[in-house]
């Protein structure tokens, strides 16, 4: 390494703390970003892969509404139209003990063109000898698969999870009913891929278990690319309400449901990196400031400006590379932790994801590395330019620097205000774009950050006289010091303020959201007891027996079904309202009485907030649905409040539903009790009636609310983790800044010590200063945090999920944020203040 670089790097080597903190800052920023990216991508990939395996070679799927596909359509296609590359599928869900399973009913004879793993050729052949057929052979396997009552296949891993061996019988719960299953063979994925949590059974058995006789979940279709003729032939032979859709398109649509969720996580991960950028800026700027003499000497010796700039930047590059590389490693580690949270949130809200390992994609790694290194270089550019502007003079005095920084403060403030305006403009003009909304949020944060030094100087100048009166010389030194050392403390305050404001923004948003959901649950959950079946529907014969029990005054029924519409896959809610149910639906901006009349008498529907936002649908407009009766247009009577699904839903009366759809299933009923009847007693009699017929889930009103809130809180765990990581980065920033500041002022402290200040007093001085820094950060974070909360609620959440949330601000998150800011600063100041107190005066004065 040339001596000129060694001269400069030697400084970093002598200050390993600063070097280490800078690297750590980048490392955490990159790690968070990479981790979120990996967790997102891995869950998505796992979902797509499992869909890929389940869909196999299917290019298209024939689907129909809630009632499923009429099975005779399949026979007609095959026997009359001679279309062979199609396969019937009956699918659903099951439980074996506590293990949730996906149930796939297939016709093995149609599978060869689709799923290799279900083909008999792949059946495990080395089954233990069985008494009736001798050593297992593939033909026995097929024979048994087709003829043994309750025969199922599963992967070796799933069999191991359930502690089953081939030949074993076991209980399986499907649609709330206990069934006897026999494991007759082991599925082996043909390229080592295994679909976990999957049981495959014969289609006849699947129809029996799922009570779907006569109906198919879908028909898989395989058509050569661009064989439009075949596609239109198939389409032509389908009845109304049954559609031929692209398989990949369906999968993609399902996967896209989670896009907004993932985008928000990604944005959160950028926050940590943004805080990291400030930290880097801080570190590099310090390193430059502290070497002003060195740089002066180098310049006098003939080092050019360009060389100076390059030295500083290449230092940053080394730090950035190290930090980013470590960040990648940490990111993979963190990614595995986050994956659990992301997968759970996705499973709670969007689709089942069965994934435990992060799939490390080179794209994520490259992105993380480039972002980390890029952020470092960007952050280092400003100090590098500053370094190269040093005159080759021998001493730039501290005060000159502060003067310069002082002059920059208002300029920075003006550009900050400009950025805030820009952000407001972006928010106003970007329509419904989530990504631009998020960018605008970052511009807003940046703009605010630029204003912070100005605000801080004002506050500390205003407070300095009081500080002197209260805290004496130490107080004056501490607090006056902050304002006068903005070039060093300003950035640290900004970094902390941003991190803290993020916690305010997010916690106010989450708190408001939580309050809205809680209110909504309170009004929606009108029934006293809810009865349903885990992932299934109620036995129609059971319903009259349940609802006629003593104590039950009224009941409502509900059916949640999916329907392919022109707007993609849409949730349909078919409700039979009990008199008490109406109050449970909060209708927006319309006269409820009028709306309900239309709902009950004119086949009008309601759409949820999210649906209305997503599809830009308003009351008075029409939604078009594909039904077995053909396409029908239903009038939207009103928009209703719902936090049920961010994809939105269309609600219709059960009568309307029955009129258009060939589906009598009821998923759950809500029971209204007569006064004086005890919920627990009624639940007991419900249990008695259903005993042996169907295993039901029963929840009281309160239970449902608790469960819903638990899911809500679970969803935001990952958000909390991310903003605490950002706070962590900020604490590191403060720590580094305080350390550098004490280093910078070592001589001053040496003098103070020489003049008779005790180590304790020096420590107090430093602690006071850091506490004051924390206080300033907290104070400035509050307005920024509140604005952020507003943007998150009104812009980001709305654009991402279509939710309407009422902002609720309480003092608690603000006080918590202030405590956090001061606490973080004090925590960061512990070592520096100890250091300042214990510096030996003579050495301190001599150093540098």
């Amino acid at each position, binding site marked *: 390494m*040339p*001596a*000129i670089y*060694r*001269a*400069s*790097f*030697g*400084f970093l*080597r*002598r200050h390993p703390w600063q070097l280490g903190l800078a690297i750590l800052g980048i490392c955490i920023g990159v790690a968070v970003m990479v981790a979120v990216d990996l967790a997102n991508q891995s869950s998505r990939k796992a979902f797509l892969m499992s869909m890929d395996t389940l869909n196999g070679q299917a290019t298209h799927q024939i689907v129909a509404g809630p009632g499923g596909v009429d099975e005779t359509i399949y026979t007609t296609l095959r026997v009359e139209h001679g279309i062979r590359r199609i396969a019937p599928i009956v699918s659903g869900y099951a439980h074996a003990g506590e293990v949730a399973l996906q149930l796939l009913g297939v016709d093995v004879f149609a599978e060869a063109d689709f799923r290799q793993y279900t083909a008999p050729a792949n059946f495990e052949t080395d089954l233990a000898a069985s008494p009736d057929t001798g050593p297992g052979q593939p033909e026995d396997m097929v024979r048994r698969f087709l003829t043994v009552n309750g025969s199922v296949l599963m992967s070796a891993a799933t069999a191991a999870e359930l502690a089953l061996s081939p030949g074993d019988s076991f209980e399986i719960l499907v649609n709330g009913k206990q069934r006897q299953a026999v494991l007759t063979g082991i599925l082996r994925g043909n390229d080592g891929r295994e679909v976990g949590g999957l049981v495959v059974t014969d289609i006849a058995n699947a129809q029996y278990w799922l009570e779907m006789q006569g109906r198919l979940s879908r028909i898989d279709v395989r058509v050569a690319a661009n064989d439009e003729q075949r596609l239109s032939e198939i389409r032509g032979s389908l009845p109304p309400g049954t559609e031929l859709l692209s398989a990949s398109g369906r999968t993609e649509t399902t996967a896209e449901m989670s896009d907004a969720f993932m985008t928000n996580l990604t944005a959160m991960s950028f926050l940590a990196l943004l805080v990291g950028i400030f930290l880097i800026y801080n570190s590099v700027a310090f390193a430059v400031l502290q070497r002003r*003499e*060195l740089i002066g*000497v*180098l*310049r*006098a*010796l*003939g*080092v*050019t*400006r*360009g060389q100076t700039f390059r030295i500083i930047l290449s230092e940053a590059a080394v730090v950035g590379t190290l930090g980013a590389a470590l960040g990648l490693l940490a990111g993979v580690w963190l990614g595995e932790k986050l994956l659990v949270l992301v997968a759970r949130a996705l499973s709670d809200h969007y689709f089942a994801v069965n994934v435990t390992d992060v799939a490390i994609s080179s794209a994520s790694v490259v992105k993380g590395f480039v972002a980390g290194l890029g952020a470092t270089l960007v952050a280092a550019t400003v100090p590098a330019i500053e370094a190269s502007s040093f*005159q*080759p*003079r*021998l001493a730039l005095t501290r005060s000159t620097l502060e003067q310069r920084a002082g002059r920059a403060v208002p300029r920075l403030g003006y550009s900050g205000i400009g950025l805030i305006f820009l952000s407001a403009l972006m928010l106003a003009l970007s329509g419904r774009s989530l990504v631009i909304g998020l960018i605008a949020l970052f511009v807003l944060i940046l703009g605010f950050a630029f204003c912070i030094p100005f605000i801080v100087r004002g506050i500390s100048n205003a407070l300095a006289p009081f500080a002197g009166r209260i805290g004496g010389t130490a107080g004056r030194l501490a607090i006056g010091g902050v304002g006068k050392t903005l070039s060093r403390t300003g950035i640290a305050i900004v970094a902390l303020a941003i991190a803290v404001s993020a916690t305010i923004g997010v916690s106010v948003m989450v708190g408001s959201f939580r309050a809205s959901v809680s209110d909504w649950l309170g009004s929606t959950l009108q029934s006293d007891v809810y009865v349903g079946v885990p992932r299934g529907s109620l036995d129609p014969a059971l319903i009259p027996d349940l609802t006629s029990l003593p104590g039950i005054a009224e009941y409502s029924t509900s059916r949640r079904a999916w329907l392919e519409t022109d707007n993609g896959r849409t949730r349909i809610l078919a409700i039979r309202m009990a008199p008490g149910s109406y109050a449970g639906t909060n209708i927006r901006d319309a006269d409820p009485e009028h709306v309900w009349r239309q709902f009950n008498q004119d086949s009008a529907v309601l759409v949820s907030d999210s649906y209305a936002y997503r599809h830009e649908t308003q009351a008075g407009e029409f939604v078009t649905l594909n039904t077995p009766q053909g396409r029908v247009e239903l009038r939207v009577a009103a928009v209703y409040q719902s936090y049920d699904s961010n994809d939105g839903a269309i609600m219709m009366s059960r009568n309307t539903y029955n009129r258009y759809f060939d589906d009598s299933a009821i998923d759950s009923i809500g029971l209204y009790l007569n006064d004086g009847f005890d919920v627990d007693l009624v639940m007991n009699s419900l249990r008695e009636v259903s005993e042996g017929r169907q295993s039901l889930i029963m929840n009281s009103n309160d239970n449902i609310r608790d469960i819903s809130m638990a899911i809500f809180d679970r969803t935001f765990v990952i958000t909390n983790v991310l903003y605490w990581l950002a706070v962590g980065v900020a604490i590191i920033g403060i720590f580094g800044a305080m350390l550098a500041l004490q280093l910078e002022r070592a001589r001053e402290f040496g003098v103070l010590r020489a003049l008779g200040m005790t180590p304790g007093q020096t420590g107090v001085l430093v602690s006071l200063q850091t506490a004051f820094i924390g206080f300033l950060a907290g104070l400035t974070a509050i307005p920024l945090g509140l604005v952020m909360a507003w943007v998150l609620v009104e812009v980001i959440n709305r654009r991402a999920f279509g939710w309407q949330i009422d902002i609720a601000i309480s003092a608690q998150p603000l006080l918590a944020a202030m405590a956090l800011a001061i606490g973080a600063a004090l925590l960061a100041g512990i070592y520096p203040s100890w250091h300042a107190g214990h510096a030996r005066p003579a050495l301190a004065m001599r150093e*540098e």
Partner: protein
Amino acid sequence: MTTTNKRAQVRIRDLSRSFWEGERQHDVLRNLSVEFAQGETVALRGRSGSGKSTLLNLISGIDVPDAGEVEVSGKSITGMSERERTLFRREHIGFVYQAFNLVSTLSVSDNIRLVLELNGIGREQADQRILKLLDAVGLRDRAESYPDILSGGEQQRVAIARALAHEPVLLLADEPTGNLDDRTAEGVLQLLDELVRQAGGTMIIATHSAGVAEYSDRVLELQNGALVS
């Protein structure tokens, strides 16, 4: 070390430089004209604030005058761009400072090497020259030491070695003995005398001490930004 083949003639015409202190203008140099002959050693004397350092900074191109011209070996420093000045300084001028200004993060030999590298001198040649220089200043055994463990006199001898490493045509010394006790100062001056003056190099020493005079060909007195005598 000889500089016989590389001597500079320095010509200064009507040089003025002032600084602002708040609202008040402070003239450091006023219409100063002076010439330094090739191979000449000149002592520049004056009290603190008399403009000595400013003059040296202007000669080396570290600072730019408000008016006037500086010419070194026939080349106008004042007409050059910032970059040209830096490169000219790097190649032709050596500096010795009162505060030594060694790079604390580099060893003694690396401090010298820095200058050689800047001038594009190859590693082997640089190694040889560093040894020779350290021999000349009597610090060969401290080659790998770091500046902060050297005494003041030793540090200044390293600084002299560094200043002469790239064989500059002109050596500027700003209070080279200002931080040293008398005996050590004497040694440093002797060293400069030996390595520059006796070898025929051009040297300008700014100082407020009288002792320098005996090593100089000429003594110039600077008072309030102008030459007296």
